C-alpha cells in the first residue's frame, strides 16, 4: 500500500506465522507419532523429534490395511468421478447454450434442480436404487401387470425379476457422485462468455456443431477443465460416506475407508504410530496435486462454488 507501517507489517507476519503453525503443527506431530515405536508413542510427554520407525510403520500399515488395493480403488474412483463429471457436463452445457430446441428450458431446470440436494440427504434411497438399478423397470413391469398378462395369454406363470446390482462395483461408487450439476453450470457460464463470432465464423466455414465443439470450444475451455479437474479429484479421493455405505467387500473400499479401520479403539492396542503414518500416506496424493497445481487449484476453487 501507500504508506510504510513496519509495526503493522510485523504483526501481520506474526499472525500469518501463527496460521502456518496452526496448519503445520498437527501435521508435524502426526509425522513424529508415525515415526515412533508403539512403546514410544505412549510416552508422556511425546518426544519432540521423530524416531526412526517411519518406514517400518508405513510397511505395517500398508499390509495391515491392504493399502495396495485400496489406493488403486481410490485412484479409479477419483479419476472416474473427474473424467465422468467433466465429460457429461461439457456435453450438456454445450447442448443448452448452443442449441435451440424444444424442452431446452425443461432440460435446463431438470439439471438445475439437482444442484440443491447433496448426496448426504438421500443416502438410503440412493443406496436402494444403486443396489438394484433395475428397480424402476421392475415397477413398470408390475404396474402394467405384464406377468399376469403373459399368464393369461400363454398359460405359463413367470415372475419377472429384474436385477442389476451395483454394490461393490466401480460404477456404483462413481455414478451417484457424478449426479449433480455444479460442473454443468461452471461450463455454461464460461460458454456464455465465449464470443459469438467464433461460432459464426466456424459455421461460415461449414463446420458441423461437433467440429465446432472439438476444435474451438474444447481448446478454449482447457484452463477451466484443468481447474475443475483438481477440485473433482480431491472430492473423489476424499469421499467418505458413500464408499463407507456402499462397499461390503473389503477389496472394494477406498483408502480413506481403510484408514478408518486403523484408528485405535478403546479396547484395542493403541497403535497410533501406525495410524498416523497411514494418515500421512493417505493424504499424500491430494496434497501433491494441490501443491503441484496451486494456481489452477485456487481458480477452480473460487469458480466452482459459484
Amino acid at each position, binding site marked *: *500500500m501507500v*504508506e510504510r*507501517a513496519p509495526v503493522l*507489517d510485523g504483526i*501481520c*507476519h506474526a*499472525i*500469518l506465522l501463527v*496460521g*502456518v503453525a*496452526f*496448519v503445520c503443527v*498437527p*501435521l508435524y506431530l502426526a509425522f513424529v507419532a508415525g515415526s515412533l515405536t508403539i512403546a514410544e508413542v*505412549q510416552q508422556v*510427554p511425546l518426544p519432540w523429534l521423530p524416531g526412526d520407525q517411519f518406514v517400518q510403520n508405513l510397511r505395517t500399515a500398508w499390509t495391515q490395511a491392504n493399502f495396495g488395493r485400496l489406493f488403486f480403488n481410490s485412484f479409479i474412483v477419483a479419476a472416474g468421478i473427474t473424467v465422468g463429471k467433466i465429460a457429461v*457436463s461439457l456435453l*450438456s452445457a*454445450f*447442448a*443448452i*447454450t*448452443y*442449441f*435451440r*430446441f424444444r424442452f431446452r428450458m425443461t*432440460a*435446463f431446470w431438470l*439439471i438445475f434442480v439437482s444442484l*440443491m440436494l447433496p448426496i*448426504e*440427504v438421500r*443416502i*438410503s*434411497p*440412493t443406496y*436402494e436404487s*444403486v443396489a438394484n438399478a433395475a428397480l424402476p423397470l421392475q415397477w413398470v413391469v408390475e404396474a402394467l401387470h405384464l406377468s399376469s398378462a403373459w399368464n393369461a395369454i400363454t398359460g405359463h406363470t413367470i415372475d419377472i425379476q429384474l436385477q442389476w446390482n451395483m454394490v461393490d462395483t466401480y460404477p456404483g461408487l462413481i455414478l451417484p457422485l457424478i449426479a449433480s*450439476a455444479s460442473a454443468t453450470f461452471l461450463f455454461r*457460464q464460461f460458454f*456464455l*462468455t465465449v464470443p459469438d463470432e467464433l*461460432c459464426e465464423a466456424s459455421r461460415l466455414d461449414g463446420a458441423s*456443431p*461437433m467440429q465446432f465443439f472439438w476444435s474451438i470450444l474444447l481448446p478454449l475451455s482447457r484452463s477451466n477443465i484443468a481447474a475443475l479437474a483438481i477440485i473433482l479429484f480431491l472430492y473423489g479421493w*476424499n469421499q467418505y460416506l458413500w464408499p463407507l455405505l456402499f462397499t461390503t467387500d473389503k477389496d472394494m473400499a477406498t483408502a480413506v475407508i481403510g*484408514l*478408518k479401520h486403523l484408528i485405535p479403539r478403546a479396547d484395542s492396542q*493403541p497403535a*497410533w504410530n501406525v495410524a498416523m503414518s497411514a*494418515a500421512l500416506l*493417505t*493424504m499424500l496424493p*491430494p*496434497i501433491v496435486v494441490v*501443491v503441484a497445481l*496451486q494456481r489452477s487449484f485456487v481458480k477452480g476453487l*473460487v469458480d466452482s*462454488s*459459484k
Partner: protein
Amino acid sequence: MAAAIESGLKRAHFKDVRLPVLLLLPQLAILLFFFFIPSFRALGQAFFLSDPFGNTVHFVGFDNFAQLLQSDTYHESVQVTVVFTILQNLLTIAVALVLAFASDRVIRGRGIYKAIILLPYAIAPVIAGILWAFLFNPAVGPLAQVLHALGLAWDPNRVGSDAMILVILAASWKHVCYDYIFLLAGLLAVPSSLMEAAAVDGAGPLRRFFTIGLPLLMPTMFFLAVMNFVYGFFEIFAIVDAVTQGGPAGATNVLVFKVYVDGFINLDLGSSAAQSVILMIFALLMTLLQFRYVERRVSYDV
C-alpha cells in the same frame, strides 16, 4: 436469426434437434437414476412405515414427522447441530478474516503463506478428524497432555463438551482455508483507487479495512456463512463417525449422523427418510440463498 434472445442461449446457435438431445442424454440418465428416483423415494418413504426387512409397508401419513418432532433425541440432535454449525461458522470466518487481512498487507512471502494455509483443503475431513483425535487423545495425545499439565481434566470420551470442542476444532482446521481464499480474493479485488483515496485522506490501514474492505466483503461473508452451514450440516459426518461416533451420550450426534444411524444401523427407514426430507428442505433453502448471492455478482446475459 438473432432477433429474440432467449435467456442462456448463445446468439449464434445451432438449430439441430436430435444432436442436443443426444448430448444431454448421459447427464439426464445419470440424474434420473441417481438423483430424481432416489429423491422421490425418500419423499415416499417418509410417509410409510416399513419393517426392517421391507416385507410389510403401510401408509402412515405424517406420523413419522410427528414422532420425530416429539422425540427428545431428535431435539437434542437439532440442538447439537445448531450449536456446532454456529460455533464452527464464527471460528472459521473470524480466523480466516484475520489471516486474509494479514495476507493482503504483507507482500514478501505471501505466496508461501497462502500455499501452506491452503493445504488442509486437500486433506479429507476424516483424516482431519483422526489427526485431532490423536492430538487430543486423553491417554497419548500431546495436546491433551498439555491440558492435563495445566490442571484441566480433558477427556472427550467421557465429557460431552470436550467432544464437541474436539469436533469443532477438527472441522474448523479443515475448513478455515476455504473461507480464507474467498476473503483474500475479495480483499484483493477491492479497487485500489478507493484505498488510495482513503489513505490520502489520512485513514490508516486498520481504519481502511474496517470502513472500506469489510463492508465490501459482506456479500462474500454471507456466501461463506451459507457454505459453512452446508459444510457443517453434511460434511461433518466423516469427522463425527471417525472421532466420536455421536457420543458421548449423544453430545455430538449431529443430524446427518443420526440419519445414518437410524437408517442403516437401527433400520428405522421411515424415520430416517423423514429426517432426510427435513434435511432436503434445509439444503434447498441454503441453495436458494446461495443463488441470491450468485445472481448478484454474476451476470448471465453476456
